[in-house]
């Protein structure tokens, strides 16, 4: 390496490998002004916040961003970003449902509903009514949910105590191995033979174990494969306790990590459903909340009409 490139490398600010992409989207072909019901769902998670806006039950706009340390602020920012360049404003939204860990802290929400119910409802919409078992892998928790053909929750189990098996654990590993978090999945398959999973359950101990493996000559790819396998095994334990009935689907940020998804499928011997259309499985919670908001506003109108 020449001196010039060396300096260039050193001059780069420290990269934050855990940092995943924030994004917003709206459907330019949909005219919200023609809609009778505009409903909104906000999912304030411990790590990320999503806002979803539906026009007559059709996905119109959404945004996903980091929650940060201010959940009321992040709810507002996510909604503002989703509505950017749409001409639509908060005042025109008929009903807003808040969900997620920060759901009681959203100033403009009309109602709060638990994320378990919202994820099941959202998954029913994204994956279709055949979904019976849902795994929601969030930033700081992981939930196994059983639901019926209407997306109604039958039973659920949750781990919100331990970072192993959550997005936060994966962020720690991306940073440790200096691999951008969005590349973890692909990289974890660049091994000739699948290595055994790391033996530590705890993310903190897993870090020391990974450093030891790197020192003993393992490649980053091999360590990632080993960690992804351990994480898959960990969440499959949760699923096994509640029982997996097909069809099976995964929501939440980790559902975008192919390294985890394929290994969960391998451990379960069941394939995960692909989303219908281009729906983003990370917005399932906010989408479910927006669907509840639609139902609630329609019920209010019916009651108003009969009163």
């Amino acid at each position, binding site marked *: 390496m020449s001196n010039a490139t060396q300096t260039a490398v050193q001059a780069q600010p420290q990269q934050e490998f855990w940092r995943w992409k924030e994004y917003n989207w709206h459907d330019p072909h949909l005219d919200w002004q023609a809609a009778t019901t505009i409903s909104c769902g906000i999912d304030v998670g411990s790590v990320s916040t999503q806002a979803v806006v539906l026009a007559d039950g059709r996905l119109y706009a959404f945004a996903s961003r980091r929650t940060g340390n201010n959940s009321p602020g992040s709810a507002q920012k996510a909604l503002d970003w989703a509505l950017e360049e749409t001409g639509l404003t908060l005042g025109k939204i008929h009903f807003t449902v808040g969900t997620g860990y920060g759901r009681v802290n959203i100033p403009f929400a009309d109602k709060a509903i638990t994320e378990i119910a919202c994820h099941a409802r959202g998954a029913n919409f994204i994956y279709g009514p055949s979904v019976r078992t849902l795994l929601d892998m969030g930033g700081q928790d992981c939930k196994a949910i059983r639901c019926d053909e209407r997306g109604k929750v039958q039973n659920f189990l949750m781990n919100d105590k331990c970072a192993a098996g959550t997005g936060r654990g994966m962020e720690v590993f991306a940073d440790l191995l200096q691999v951008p978090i969005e590349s973890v999945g692909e990289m974890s398959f660049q091994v000739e033979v699948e290595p055994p999973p790391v033996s530590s359950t*705890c993310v903190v*101990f897993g870090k020391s174990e990974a450093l030891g493996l790197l020192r003993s000559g393992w490649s980053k790819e091999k360590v990632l494969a080993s960690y992804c396998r351990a994480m898959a095994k960990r969440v499959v334990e949760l699923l096994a306790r509640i029982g997996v009935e097909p069809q099976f689907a995964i929501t939440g940020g980790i559902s975008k990590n192919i390294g985890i998804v394929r290994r969960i499928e391998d451990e379960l011997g069941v394939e995960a459903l692909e989303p219908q259309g281009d729906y983003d499985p990370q917005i399932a919670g906010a989408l479910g909340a927006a669907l509840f908001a639609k139902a609630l506003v329609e019920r209010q109108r019916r009651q108003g009409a009969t009163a």
Partner: protein
Amino acid sequence: MITAGIDCGAYNTKVVLYRDGKVLARAGVRSGFDPPAAAERALEQALQQAKIGRQALTTVITTGAGRKSVPFADDNVTAVTADARAVHELAPEVKTILDIGAEEGRSIQCTEGGRVADFAMNEKCAAGAGTFVETMARTLEVPLEEMGPLSLQSEKATAMNAQCAVFAESEVVSLIHQGTQIKDICRAVHDAMADRCVAMARRSGIVPQVALIGGVGYNVGFVSSLQRELALEVLVPEHPEYVTALGAALLGADHLNS
């Protein structure tokens, strides 16, 4: 007759040389990524301290997580057995031992004769081990040795909701942003860890006298939190980190004497 006890811990490797009721030397080195080499180095240091040669050792007994990885050991014993043996020697009134190391925690209930009646372990989760305090010290930018003394200055309890060390790190950051005083956060960290350790100890039973051994025994803040959580006095022997190694050396001597 001189016996050596080597405690191959996750973080430190400790050696105790013992002869006729007396400790001749104590030495500790980082275990690093090569536990047999660490055991070798720690033993050499202890021999130098005692000014004796390797041939003066009658037997070498290993214990701890890496006890089976030391090729020159004559035998190995579990840390639970070693703990019970050593604490009975040092303080026979002890009925409950908490051994909290860097990456493991153990609670042992002993019989009147110092035998193991029951025990419980945590080797899966950093929240009940020394690593927890170390991680939080790094987040707080407080040297590890100051965590305990700072914690003692705190006069109020601050709730920590997170159990997991990874989640607790974020919680500590938000406590800092909320303007919580560093000393109060230090106490919250020790209170949270004491809560985890006591939950483990309940599984094997808590009967006074309670003793705390392992490296975490040096942390006065944790000892105070543990006493508050248990509502009991806790005895911390001198050199708490070397108690397990002493137990291995004692068991070596017992074996040869029998």
